[in-house]
């Protein structure tokens, strides 16, 4: 019985020590120094947005449609962020393409989203591309699948086909990539909150806390 109590004490001390250490080591999830925003080349397009133009906070996401972390963010976090922050008018969300060179079909996917966006269906296509992300693991040309996503998104297919064939928005995607590179983005997804690099965890709770603290700070001014 004595051995049992010794073990109990060891587990207890270990657990309490671990919790105390974890709480003490809490990192400050916050923003980096303010950086100038490069002006996108090509047609000057600055990315599709969600939310009110009058929202006082803007979050810019640099994302790659083939990136699994971006897909996880889009399918797990965004469904919470949309009603909590975007639809409440607190935040305007801006999407920027950052197709990584290691991904074979990122640019095709970005192009498909832009071609759907030309018809006002960017976010529907965004949701299709991230919501059915198995295409990113097959290494097969997903062009036909993207076309079916476009069809599901109620996109006019002849117009979509012409847009894809001419790579109409390739320059726009390249400009977005260069904009991200100029901001020293290391990976995707990356976020900027009102122009400042967000270095915390990309979770809905973290964004909610950050937006609340920014809003409170502005009210005090």
């Amino acid at each position: 019985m004595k051995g049992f109590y010794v073990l109990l004490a060891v587990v207890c001390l270990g657990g309490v020590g671990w919790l105390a250490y974890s709480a003490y080591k809490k990192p400050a999830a916050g923003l980096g120094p303010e950086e100038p925003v490069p002006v996108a080349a090509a047609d000057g397009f600055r990315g599709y947005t969600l939310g009110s133009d009058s929202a006082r906070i803007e979050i810019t996401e640099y994302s790659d449609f083939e990136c699994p972390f971006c897909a996880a963010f889009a399918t797990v976090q965004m469904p919470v962020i949309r009603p909590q922050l975007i639809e409440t008018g607190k935040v305007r969300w801006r999407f920027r393409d950052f197709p990584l060179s290691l991904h074979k079909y990122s640019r095709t996917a970005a192009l498909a989203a832009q071609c759907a966006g030309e018809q006002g269906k960017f976010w529907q296509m965004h949701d299709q591309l991230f919501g059915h992300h198995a295409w990113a693991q097959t290494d097969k040309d997903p062009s036909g699948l993207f076309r079916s996503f476009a069809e599901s998104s109620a996109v006019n297919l002849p117009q979509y086909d012409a847009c894809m064939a001419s790579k109409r928005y390739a320059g726009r995607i390249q400009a977005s990539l260069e904009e991200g590179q100029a901001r020293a983005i290391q990976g995707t997804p990356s976020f900027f909150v009102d122009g400042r690099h967000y270095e915390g965890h990309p979770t809905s709770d973290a964004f909610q806390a950050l937006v609340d603290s920014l809003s409170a700070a502005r009210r005090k001014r």
Partner: protein
Amino acid sequence: MIRRRQAIALLALAGLFIALYLWLYRIGVIGELRCGSEGCETVQASRYAGFLGLPVALYGVVGYAVLFAVSLAAMTPGNLTRRGPEVALAALASLGFAFTVYLTVVELFVIHAICRWCVGSAVIITTIWALTVSGVRRRL
């Protein structure tokens, strides 16, 4: 029999600390989960990290705390030969085990992310469940 109940108490205490760790992260006391992958935060930040309006980790805290308390009570001389504590432990462990199965299915097939702390908790509750069920069967 006392060895089994001691093992259950130790496992429940370890599970309690895991659940506490995840709950303290959820409420913002701990800022970063040491997980070794993105899985823990993906799972913790998902809509499935809550159940009936409360964090899932809080159910774990309460569940393991009750299991720990009952297993300690079951070791008192008066309770060692009684069947009641054995059945109570088995019932509690079965509830926890069923909830863990549900959460594991959600992780694997809905969220598509694995939280290593949740796996640790799943191993603990499964072991507790196996110990309690074997205890009840021996008394039949």
